[in-house]
């Protein structure tokens, strides 16, 4: 046994362990990406760096053995900055989108590619559940949304965007046609009450999300029926009455209490604050004014992200803060404010919807479009008239046009998680001319995207240990090194036994299950 100092604390440790093993045994959080337990050490990513203070240098903790008298610091400013810089260097050579551009462009960040995949597989109900994670009124939006997602769709550069809006409409309508509509999971009531002023898309959405978190919601509206601008400003032909009513009914069944024909007056906020734990103003473009709240050119002044006004108990969303009647934005605000209110009432820092790190590389070049098309049906976009939706067959065909621009491992990618944790900024070192994205499908059942690879060598080690006939190896050296199949052959599958294993252990989305 030898003695070392770990973050100032003296401990006795066995001499044949690495700094990483000791640190983790002490409960410290050390990130690793190229480390594969039980395999040869190959210090490459350097994200596990810690400081050897007695020598004044940074060392890779995964490979360095403890030595007598070592003073290890795992989390000071220099170490954190080193990890962040290392991640930024890796990100500068990482060409891949975590989220597809359609999802990033959606104000509610709906997981569109996943919805498309489920629809293509003939699972509309499951698709709907994905939709309803982020969108409160999908059937409504499927008819009136301006579809910013479609504007960002990469398929546009090939022929036309995927008809995302109509696909969503199908999923939503399919659910509304069922005997019982989908009900999201609800948390137990937490005893708190929120007053929502306005039953337009913003207010309805806020209620939908707050109810899920266990808050009781009372919605006030001066009108006799709920719906706000959806009801009163959109022609029936575009948005049939029954569609809107059915969606509102779902929210009512979740426990929302509607106080209709009840106008909240200019000076009523103080009274409301005594009865409710928080207030959400969703009065739309109604010229409503409230004492105690600032208004600038007909818009309430509230934080752009958290929607909190200068009065911490009062939040404002939708067209009431950003005039324009963009339903999807109002609906997105509803989701966000639910998070803010929840943070506020639990004494947490109010930050609204936190967007996790998202890798983005921009427009696809021509040959890249061809790569992406390998997974998509080349058929042209199906158009329907007006608000008419798709048939089942039409829906499936359209869903198969999706090019799957998202990363299949966006929810379990170490590079993404650590970049998020350390606040890495992708464009810091990103070159002006980037590498071209490739998708290699020959290693069934996984897909290999070399431009996401961080050259950690985990797959090389795995294929070698399992004695694959060909396996994967490093080809070339230095910055241009690539992981590839020796004697690269277009058709041969080099990962007969280890494909899934490699995909599971790959720390990024370079190797992923299809």
């Amino acid at each position, binding site marked *: 046994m030898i003695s070392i100092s770990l973050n100032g604390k003296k401990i006795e440790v066995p001499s044949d362990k690495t700094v990483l093993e000791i640190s983790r045994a002490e409960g410290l959080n050390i990130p690793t990406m190229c480390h594969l337990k039980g395999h040869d050490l190959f210090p490459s990513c350097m994200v596990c760096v810690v400081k050897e203070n007695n020598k004044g240098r940074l060392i*890779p903790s995964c490979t360095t053995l403890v030595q007598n008298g070592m003073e290890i610091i795992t989390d000071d400013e220099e170490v954190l900055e080193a990890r962040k810089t290392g991640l930024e260097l890796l990100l500068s050579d990482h060409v891949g989108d975590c989220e597809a551009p359609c999802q990033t462009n959606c104000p509610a960040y709906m997981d569109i590619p996943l919805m498309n995949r489920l629809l293509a597989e003939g699972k509309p109900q499951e698709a709907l559940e994905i939709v309803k994670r982020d969108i409160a009124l999908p059937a409504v939006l499927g008819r009136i949304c301006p579809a910013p997602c479609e504007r960002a769709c990469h398929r546009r550069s090939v022929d036309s965007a995927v008809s995302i809006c109509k696909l969503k409409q199908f999923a939503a309508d399919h659910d509304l046609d069922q005997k019982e509509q989908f009900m999201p999971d609800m948390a137990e009531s937490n005893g708190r009450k929120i007053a929502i002023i306005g039953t337009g898309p913003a207010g309805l959405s806020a209620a939908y999300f707050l109810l899920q978190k266990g808050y009781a919601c009372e919605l006030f509206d001066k009108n006799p029926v709920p719906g706000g601008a959806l009801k009163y400003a959109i022609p029936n032909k575009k948005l049939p009455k029954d569609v809107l009513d059915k969606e509102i009914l779902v929210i009512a069944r979740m426990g929302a209490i509607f106080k209709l024909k009840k106008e909240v007056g200019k000076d009523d906020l103080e009274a409301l604050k005594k009865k409710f734990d928080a207030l959400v103003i969703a009065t739309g473009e109604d010229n409503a004014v409230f004492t105690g709240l600032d208004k600038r050119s007909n818009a309430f002044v509230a934080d752009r992200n958290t929607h909190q006004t200068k009065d911490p108990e009062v939040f404002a969303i939708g067209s009431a803060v950003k005039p324009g009647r963009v339903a999807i934005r109002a609906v997105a605000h509803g989701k966000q404010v639910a998070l803010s209110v929840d943070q506020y009432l639990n004494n947490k820092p109010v930050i609204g919807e936190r967007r996790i790190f998202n890798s983005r590389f921009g427009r696809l070049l021509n040959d890249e479009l061809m790569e992406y098309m390998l997974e998509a049906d080349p058929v042209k976009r199906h158009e329907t008239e007006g608000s008419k939706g798709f048939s089942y067959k039409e829906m499936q065909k359209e869903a198969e046009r999706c090019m799957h621009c998202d990363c299949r491992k966006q929810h379990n990618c170490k590079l993404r998680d650590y970049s998020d944790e350390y606040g890495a900024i992708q464009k810091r070192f990103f070159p002006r001319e980037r590498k071209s994205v490739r998708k290699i499908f020959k290693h069934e059942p996984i897909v290999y995207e070399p431009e996401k690879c*961080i*050259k950690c060598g985990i797959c090389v080690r795995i294929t070698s240990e399992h004695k694959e*006939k060909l396996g994967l190896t490093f*080809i070339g050296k230095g910055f241009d090194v690539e992981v590839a199949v*020796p004697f690269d052959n277009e058709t041969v599958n080099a990962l007969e036994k280890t494909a899934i294993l490699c995909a599971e252990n790959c720390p990024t989305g370079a190797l992923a299950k299809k």
Partner: protein
Amino acid sequence: MAELNIEQVIKEKGREKKAVIPILQVIQNKFNYLPEDILRRVCETTDITPDLIMGVASFYTQFRLEPAGDHIIKVCTGTACHVKGAELVYDAYRRSLKLPDGKNTDEKGKYSLEKVNCLGCCTLAPVVQIDDTTYGHVGIEDVDQVIGSFEHDLNNPSGKRGSTGDNIDGREGEIRIGLGSCCVASGSEEVKKSLEKAVVSNGLNVNMKKVGCVGMCHQVPLLEMIPSGKEPVLYAHVKPGDVNAIIKKHFKPRGLWDRLKSSLFELAEDIQTDHNWDGVERFELNVREKQVSSFLGRQVPIATEHRGVLDPLDVEEYQQSGGFRAMKICLNELDPPEVVQRVIDSGIRGRGGGGFSTGEKWRIVKDQVSERKFIICNGDEGDPGAFMDRMILESYPYRVIEGMVIGAYATGATEGYFYIRAEYPLAVQRIREALKICRERGYLGKNILGTDFSFDIKIFEGAGAFICGEETALIASIEGNRGFPKLRPPFPAEKGLWGHPTLVNNTETFAQIAYIIKNGVFEFTNHGTQLSKGTKVFALAGKVNRGGLIEVPMGISIREIVEDIGGGVSGDRELKAVQIGGPSGGCIPHWLMDTPVDFESLEEVGAMMGSGGLVVLDDTDCMVDIARYFLSFTQSESCGKCTFCRVGTKRMLDILNKICTGKGSPKDIEELENLSGWTKKGSLCGLGKTAPNPVLSTLRYFRDEYEAHIHGKCPTGKCRDMVKYHIEETCIGCTKCAQNCPVDAIAFTPYEVHSIDQEKCIKCDGCRQVCPEDCVTVS
């Protein structure tokens, strides 16, 4: 298509993993590249797997996976060649061979063009090699002539003449000719042929001796006349046509008939060649003459003892001059701990640049308990601008072997390796021959000198990877792996080749060991400083009058080296800086010329001893370009294993490229500095840790040049993307520039003001140099 018996090769080299590089080298030698089907066959019949063979074949630059032309033209891009315009020479070859973008082989498949790392002939910069022939001083106007000369020799192979160096009694004297690689490249082979012819035709009875490097590379070809009983006279810049007259001056042909014959012969030659020649005196170099004595005076030959005197492969001569005495002392009189102690006491530190106490390293290896121990001579001299180890291996092979035997004895090593880089074929040849002779004499092998100490050495040829100069990467390549460095500790001294204790020392370090034992510790410690004892060999090159290989005591100042030994900056220009330590080192600005050359002092000023490359830079050199040059070298040689080196050096280079093309911003300088710091801190091995040094040191001393580039100006005009060549109105229309332009960017308009087509201009500076009226400006 050439044939190769693969089974035979495998039988020779072995079927284990570690045979992969030697096997690939044989294949590459035969076909000039590695055909895939042959590689597959190797995998089928050995333990080498496809992932291994391709991983290795694609790592080392010696190996080609695509067929190349019949002949390979290699343009050296070492430091000295770079500052003398290697990039322009490379471009000139691309034009001459009409190579389309992205392709490196001409249409007929006759020539392939490559840029190569330093060939080690720096004083002849720019250097070009075609197959095995080296050409020096190749300017852009010479590119076609070089190809012509090569093709001429191809079609007219001259047979090798036997040497007339017999040791006959009553000989009249000795003639020595330097035949190191540089000498050969500058034409010494032709001089040697003339010499042989002249000796024969004059009927002389002289000992003709090939000697190793004299170090005065700026004077090659060198010939030394030593008539019996007389003072030796040295001749420099000898041309083949001069030889006969030089010989006649010192050696008289014997009989009357021979004298007549020789005069007639001369007459015939003169008539035939119309040779107008104005006398011999001009080329004579008296050792007492100032320039020679200045060059040689301050030097202290230890690694290069008896320079210019010994025939590299003459073992008798080596012995007579004191060779192998140290080895005998050790094996017969000292025990291993005593040997180690002497090395420790001498204070000698690693001459490869690391500067670690050699004796300490020996002690660590000695103290390891293991059945097998290895000793490796690191001859993978990869620093561009460094050619010391090449010279030592070519000229003093026995000395290095002796050092290794002593080291093996002291540490208990049982097996040794010479690791010599691929680009030094002559060194490999000499060492191979020397090893053979040593074995014949019982200096290697079982029971050396009749003691119970047995030890032998193999040769491993590097396959082209700068990183393999790093000891753990070097060991990895001998094991048959990609040259990935390993984290230290554990150090190779404890756990090295195949896990056994391994002593890795630089060539020059081994070359100094015998002297320490033979002459005693105090002789060695007499030279040098408190912490840096002894001497160091440097390769002085660049913008200096007298370039060459020098061995000087540690502690000598840079000023003394450049001015006294080197004769000052060439061409009447001003000294700007001296780059020391190669791509791991830094620049020492002209106002710090009194800095002593020792490990600590150099580190203090932001440079590094390195392996010994010393490049002199003048006021026409752009320091930002120099930084970029070194960084692009290390960046391209990165093994790619760790993030900070693989991506860090690349992003640093991106920033430098931006700056050198006029697209930089002030933020870029900040980010460059920042990233340099992180690359230093976060890299796994010496390559990444020292790659930022040239950048950091030029930023420290020449920040104004960086800022000038940010503001759109390259002060020296060297950064081609930032300058425009322009002919002023004062042009007299002499058309010299138009005639000279290699890309026809100047229209031929006699008596009118000429103008440069900016689209075509390659900024070669040719027009400005030939203009008699000085009307070409650079902005």
